[in-house]
C-alpha cells in the first residue's frame, strides 16, 4: 500500500488520525447501508419477477383474444369502437424513500367503478370477442402498473447498491489502509527522532561529565602543589 505524501510531524499525525476515525465510521455506516439496501432490493426483485410473469401471461391471453376480435371485425368499426375510451386512467405518483433512494409509488383510479361498465361502445356493431379482449386487458391494467412500479424501483435500487458497494470497497481497501500505513510511518519516524535526540543528550552529558572530571583533577593537582 502506498503511503501518503506528507511531512512526518506531530500535527499531520493528529490530522491523519482524525481522518482515519472518520473513514472508519463512514465505512461502517456505508456497509450497513449496503446491507439494508440489499435486503430491500431482494424483496423487491423477487416480487418483480413474480409480477412480470403474471403480467406477461395476462397480456398474452389479452393479445390473443384481441387478435381474434380483429379477425372477425371490420378494422374501421374496431377503431371507431375504441375511439372514445370510457375508462379514464388517472395516475397518481408519489415517492417512497428506501434508504434515501426515492422510488416511485403509483396509485391509479379508473374513473368508473362498476365492473360491467368498461366497454366504451354499444354492442350493436361489435363482436363478442372484443368484449372478451377488453375484459382481459382491464384485468391486466393493475398488474401492469404494479410491474412498472416494481421494475423502476429495482433499477434505481440496483444503481444505488452498485454505487454504495464501490464506496465501501474504496474505503476498505484503499483509504483506510493508506491512512493506517501513513500513521504508522509517522509514528516510527517520530520515535526514531526521539531516540536520536536522547542519544545525543546522553552523549553531551557524558562529554560534560568528562570535562568536569578533568577540571576537578586539574584543580586537585594545583591544590596539592
Amino acid at each position, binding site marked *: 500500500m502506498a503511503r501518503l505524501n506528507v511531512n512526518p510531524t506531530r500535527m499531520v499525525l493528529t490530522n491523519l488520525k482524525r481522518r482515519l476515525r472518520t473513514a472508519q465510521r463512514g465505512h461502517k455506516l456505508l456497509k450497513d447501508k449496503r446491507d439494508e439496501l*440489499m435486503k430491500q*432490493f*431482494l424483496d423487491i*426483485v*423477487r416480487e*418483480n*419477477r413474480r409480477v*412480470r*410473469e403474471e*403480467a*406477461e401471461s395476462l*397480456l*398474452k391471453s*389479452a*393479445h390473443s383474444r*384481441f*387478435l381474434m376480435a*380483429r379477425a372477425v371485425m371490420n378494422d374501421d368499426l*374496431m*377503431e371507431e369502437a*375504441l375511439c372514445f*375510451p370510457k*375508462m*379514464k*386512467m*388517472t*395516475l*397518481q*405518483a408519489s*415517492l417512497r424513500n428506501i434508504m434515501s433512494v*426515492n*422510488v*416511485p409509488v*403509483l396509485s391509479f383510479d*379508473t*374513473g368508473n367503478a362498476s365492473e360491467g361498465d*368498461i*366497454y*366504451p361502445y354499444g354492442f350493436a356493431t361489435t363482436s363478442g370477442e372484443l368484449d372478451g*379482449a*377488453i375484459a382481459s*386487458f*382491464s384485468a*391486466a*391494467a393493475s398488474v*401492469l*402498473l404494479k*410491474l*412498472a*412500479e416494481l*421494475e*423502476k424501483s*429495482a*433499477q*434505481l*435500487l*440496483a*444503481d444505488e*447498491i*452498485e454505487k454504495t458497494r464501490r464506496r465501501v470497497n474504496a474505503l476498505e481497501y484503499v483509504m483506510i489502509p493508506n491512512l493506517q500505513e501513513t500513521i504508522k510511518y509517522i509514528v516510527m519516524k517520530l520515535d526514531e527522532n526521539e531516540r536520536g535526540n536522547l542519544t545525543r543528550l546522553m552523549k553531551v552529558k557524558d562529554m560534560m561529565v568528562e570535562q568536569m572530571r578533568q577540571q576537578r583533577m586539574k584543580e586537585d593537582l594545583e591544590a596539592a602543589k
Partner: protein
Amino acid sequence: MYRVGVIGDKDSVLGFTAIGFEAFPAENPEQAERLLRELSEKDFAVLYLTEQYAAALESVLVQFRSRRFPAIIPIPGVQGGLGIGMAGVKQCVEKAVGADILFNE
C-alpha cells in the same frame, strides 16, 4: 397527475386504449424512438414498449434507466414475448448482487 402510454406496433397497442392507456402506434424502431423521446418530455409516468422495439432500442433505453419518470417497461406484443423483460430483471440482479442468485434454479 400522470399519464400512461403504450408504444408499439398497431396491433399490440390498440387494445390498451380501452383501459385508458394512451396508444402510440409506431411502424418501425426509428419512429418508436422518436415517440419515446417526445413522450418522455411530457407527463408520462410509465411508458410501455413492446419487446420487438425494446430489442432494437436497447441503447436508447439505457439513457432512461436512472431517471425516475418515465419508467420504460418492455412488454410482450402480439407476436409474443422475446424474454427481454425477464432479461432486464436478471441483469438488474446481476448488477446489484454481482451474481445471479434468483434465476439459477
